[in-house]
């Protein structure tokens, strides 16, 4: 990632520790895939070779939440599933981020029934919402890149006025334009 270019012939570089930590952190966002429905298939497609989430350092799907930085909630969450989701979230160590992938995870989608949680952000903090049913892999990658940019620029964790971390609450804009990757990220409030 350009580090070599900054090295002198002797192999030394002067840089801010904060920046290099952020760089390392954003280049190794390890996701825990909480894939409960069809969005999980798209998540697998994102990780596979055509879209290749490995380009963003996020290919190491960790099935242990203790080894993961990024919780990707992909699919509808039944109320019976909430204890599992919350437990996985709590087991992840800080710093951690949450992507709510797809209409179901963000709002309940078409499953407006007694047993389906109408948006997992009611019960756990969500940093980035990725719309779509399912979102295209490009959109999910944009969501990952949104977190990467925050980590890179602002450092982590962004604190609220009370000194506690606040959920980022970013929304990736719905887009059906197929563009070459990587692209500049489109992040709106």
């Amino acid at each position: 990632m350009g580090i070599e270019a900054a090295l002198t012939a002797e192999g030394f570089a002067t840089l801010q520790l904060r920046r290099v930590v952020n760089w390392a952190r954003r280049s190794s966002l390890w996701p825990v895939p909480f894939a409960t429905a069809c969005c999980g298939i798209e998540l697998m497609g994102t990780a596979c070779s055509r879209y290749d989430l490995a380009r963003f350092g996020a290919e190491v799907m960790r099935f242990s939440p203790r080894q993961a930085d990024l919780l990707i909630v992909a699919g509808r969450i039944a109320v019976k599933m909430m204890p599992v989701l919350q437990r996985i979230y709590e087991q992840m160590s800080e710093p951690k981020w949450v992507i709510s992938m797809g209409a179901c995870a963000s709002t309940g989608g078409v499953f407006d029934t007694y047993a389906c949680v109408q948006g997992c952000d009611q019960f756990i903090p969500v940093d980035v919402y990725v719309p779509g049913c399912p979102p295209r892999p490009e959109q999910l990658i944009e969501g990952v890149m949104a977190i990467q940019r925050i980590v890179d620029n602002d450092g982590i964790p962004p604190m609220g006025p009370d000194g506690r971390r606040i959920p980022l609450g970013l929304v990736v804009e719905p887009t059906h334009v197929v563009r070459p990757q990587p692209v500049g990220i489109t992040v709106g409030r």
Partner: protein
Amino acid sequence: MPDTPPVNILDHPTLKVVRDAFPGKRLRATEFRGQSTLIVEPADLHEVLAFLRNDPRCGYNFLSDVAGIDYLNYPAATIGRFAVVYNLACHARDDRFFVKVFLNPSLPTDGNADDPALCVDSACDLWPGAEWPEREVFDMFGIRFRNHPDLRRVLLWEDYPAHPLRKDYPLRGRGEREQYRVVDRASQ
């Protein structure tokens, strides 16, 4: 085939066998698109099912499904509010047969009260595969099965306050999906 109105000819051979075997019992039958349904009184259900399984002329060795129905606001008149349907199959004759009981609740149906009128005998001793479908009928309609080995909810969580496939239960529930612990970053 000319377009004739459907006629219930009720010529399924099992119907006659059952009628001859249970002369004193109240049995009714319907037919829809060639599929015959025998309607029995709830008290007779287990006896008739056992006969259908054990009698060599019937030989329904396989229970494909157990389903519950709520007929609230059904456009046509029905015998009872709830029904339980046993869907039997005979592999040797490639034959299907349905046995149905109607039940009327004696208590209000909006909670999960243990209504003694909504109770039939379990078929688990005849077909062990009845266990989970009967649990599902219990879960969704609150119809209890006597002598069931493990009558717990199968889909919803244990302390769910209602039986959601009853037609008087609102589709979006009564707040069950909203009342849950909130985890935020401050709580860690």
